[in-house]
């Protein structure tokens, strides 16, 4: 390029092309303003030196050769990206835990007049009524036995609902693992394409956007460690085991004891929704199940031992009212209300033993206290999880905002850039017109002396 007039045409041309390209990038940004995962692109342009040695006034570096587009970059901050991924992983874990615990909490709708706590109170009042009216066919015995059956039904229902929670959480875990595996496979393919694009100097910005979205999806599920290579390819590791490296993706699996493995090696997932699901399945829900079993066993043991100490309406030693163990296994084995051991002395209308049973409701080791402790544990855990969820969501959404403020599109900004490039285009055009008129002067209006 030189500063000859024809050179200047070329120089003006670079200005026009650059302005046009800038406008096309503005258009790309505006088009994708609300595309998920889109990173705003900016053009870096640089002035170009004229060709060395062809200029008759100034030559060499600093001579004038117009403008060129050096690169089109994503407005991206890898540090914020990493923080955002970590925050998303924590937030996903907190969300999943809060959702699971809220499900568990719904199994125990307390305090209400219909909850299991109220049912227990009714049951003890029934015993009190039997102690007042221990005669056969007085109605009190029948009511007591019916309510015993209701208690057992409720225990079965609650045990079933906790089981449903296990089933639902297992499904979520499997779905999350599927997502991770699908994302890992896609990421490995993408790594290949990015490596090729990077080697050949092709713009890989949209591939990098896709890469970041896949990394985010894997992180949300697992809190994976991500390492980015200079050429843009990503390596992903979970609990020290490589999930994706280059174009190779390993597979994540889970066994029947909820142990997660990557590429066949057992790993511990420390964050993300999968970590929460594994914790729920291996410790949280089982602990509530065993506490509920303890409620059933406390009920059965307490009532049966009182029964054994008394005598039924016919003077026989009291038979067990409940059999089986655990919330799912407990049943009412008594069918004849006259077998209720109301009397503590024999075949008479003493109600002493029934009175003893009615006091089990306020016993410190009775089923009521075990149940109240269970509800308290669930409530506290759920409240903490919700609190944690709020905190993590705030952290996560702050980082989303930060990320978006770096990588997002602002219409005002794009429109003002648009004005800028439009004017640049117009100015370059005007320069071209000027050169044109100068050439016209040279070609058509010079050399006319003497003609």
């Amino acid at each position, binding site marked *: 390029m030189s500063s000859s007039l024809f050179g200047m045409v070329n120089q003006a041309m670079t200005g026009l092309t650059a302005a046009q390209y800038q406008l096309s990038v503005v258009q790309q940004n505006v088009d994708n303003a609300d595309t998920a995962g889109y990173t705003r692109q900016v053009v870096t342009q640089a002035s170009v030196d004229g060709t060395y040695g062809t200029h008759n006034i100034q030559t060499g570096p600093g001579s004038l050769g117009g403008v060129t587009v050096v690169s089109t970059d994503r407005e991206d901050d890898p540090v914020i990206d990493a923080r955002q991924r970590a925050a998303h992983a924590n937030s996903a874990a907190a969300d999943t835990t809060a959702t699971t615990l809220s499900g568990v909490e719904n199994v125990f709708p307390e305090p209400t007049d219909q909850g299991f706590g109220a049912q227990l109170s009714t049951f003890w009042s029934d015993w009190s009524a039997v102690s007042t009216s221990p005669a056969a066919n007085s109605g009190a015995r029948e009511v007591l036995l019916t309510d015993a059956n209701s208690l057992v039904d409720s225990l079965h229902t609650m045990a079933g609902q906790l089981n449903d929670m296990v089933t639902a959480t297992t499904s979520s875990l499997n779905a999350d693992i599927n997502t991770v595996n699908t994302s890992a496979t896609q990421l490995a393919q993408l790594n290949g394409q990015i490596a090729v694009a990077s080697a050949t100097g092709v713009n890989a910005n949209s591939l990098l956007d896709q890469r970041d979205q896949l990394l985010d999806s894997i992180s949300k599920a697992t809190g994976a460690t991500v390492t980015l290579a200079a050429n843009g390819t990503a390596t992903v590791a979970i609990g020290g085991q490589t999930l994706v490296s280059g174009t190779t993706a390993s597979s994540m699996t889970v066994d029947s004891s909820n142990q997660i493995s990557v590429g066949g090696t057992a790993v511990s997932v420390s964050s993300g929704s999968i970590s929460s699901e594994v914790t729920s399945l291996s410790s949280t829900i089982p602990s509530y199940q065993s506490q509920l079993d303890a409620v059933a066993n406390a009920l059965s043991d307490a009532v049966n031992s009182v029964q054994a100490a008394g005598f039924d309406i016919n003077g026989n030693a009291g038979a067990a009212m409940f059999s089986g163990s655990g919330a799912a296994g407990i049943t009412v084995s008594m069918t004849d209300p006259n077998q209720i051991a109301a009397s503590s002395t024999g075949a008479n209308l003493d109600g002493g033993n029934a009175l003893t049973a009615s006091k089990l409701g306020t016993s410190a080791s009775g089923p*009521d206290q075990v149940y109240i402790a269970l509800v308290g544990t669930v*409530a506290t855990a*759920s409240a903490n999880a919700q609190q944690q969820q709020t905190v993590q969501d705030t952290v996560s959404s702050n980082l989303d905002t*930060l990320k*978006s403020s770096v990588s997002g599109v602002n219409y005002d900004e794009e429109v003002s850039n648009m004005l800028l490039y439009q004017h640049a285009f117009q100015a370059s055009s005007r320069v071209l017109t000027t050169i044109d008129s100068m050439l016209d002067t040279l070609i058509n209006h010079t050399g006319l002396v003497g003609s």
Partner: protein
Amino acid sequence: MTMRITVASASYAALDGLEAQSAKLAKLQAQMSSGNQITTPSDNPTGTVEALQLRSQSAANDQYGTSATDAVSWLSTQDSAYSQLVTLAQSARTQIVQALNTGAGDSTSANAIADSLDQIRQSLISEANTTFNGRPVFGGTTAGGVAYDSSGNYVGDDGAVTRQIGPNTTVTVSANGPNIFGADNDPTNLLTMLTNVANTLRTSPTSLPSSTLGDMDAAITRISDAQAVEGATYNQVQLAQTTQQSTATSFKTQLSGIQDIDIADMAVQITTANTTYQAALQTTASIRQLSLLNFLN
């Protein structure tokens, strides 16, 4: 450089704000419509546990109330039976005094007195079989319908029907026949004594010992004593009822404090939340319509 506000970040912020307001409003509405501060246990774990404890204690307290009401019925039944028994025993005593005074020289009148004593004895047996709810109140815990058979033998047992009327208070609401009339084989048993006196009056009216009157007095005192015990128990139950009612009220107040919403406060909160939500919606809608494009031709 100030933070860039982008299309997405503005959306996040607006959405976050709107969602938070909307969630708050939904929570308040759930509380308002249920009338409960605690709609799920996690709303207030401590409150939930306290409420469950209070409900359990309150149910136990209600049992005491029911038992006390039942105890009052038993004791009232006993009380009127005692009064009848005392009246009957006193009229028997009057007859015996008459027999002793007249020297029972007249066998006709002696026989008449003996007949009258027999009748009183039957009435005493009948009164001793007074029942409440089908159960003889002087028969202990017997499953049978009577405390005394027709010949005046005690057929009840020595058990006691008890009612728990307070956390640590149990009262006996039944009585045992032998404690009122004396044991069956005891010569001072009222029923046995009346039979013996009547027999003596029929066979040798003059041999009626004057100590009979003292024995009669002792028998009447025994009934009165039993009635006094019953009266004391009755007072105890009434006192327990008062305590039980005030305890019940106290439980209800505490429970209400934990569970129930303050409607006035809740109404103000809901109105405030609603206004904030509407304001957020309106400003979001109107502000986000604007961009530089609105002002360029």
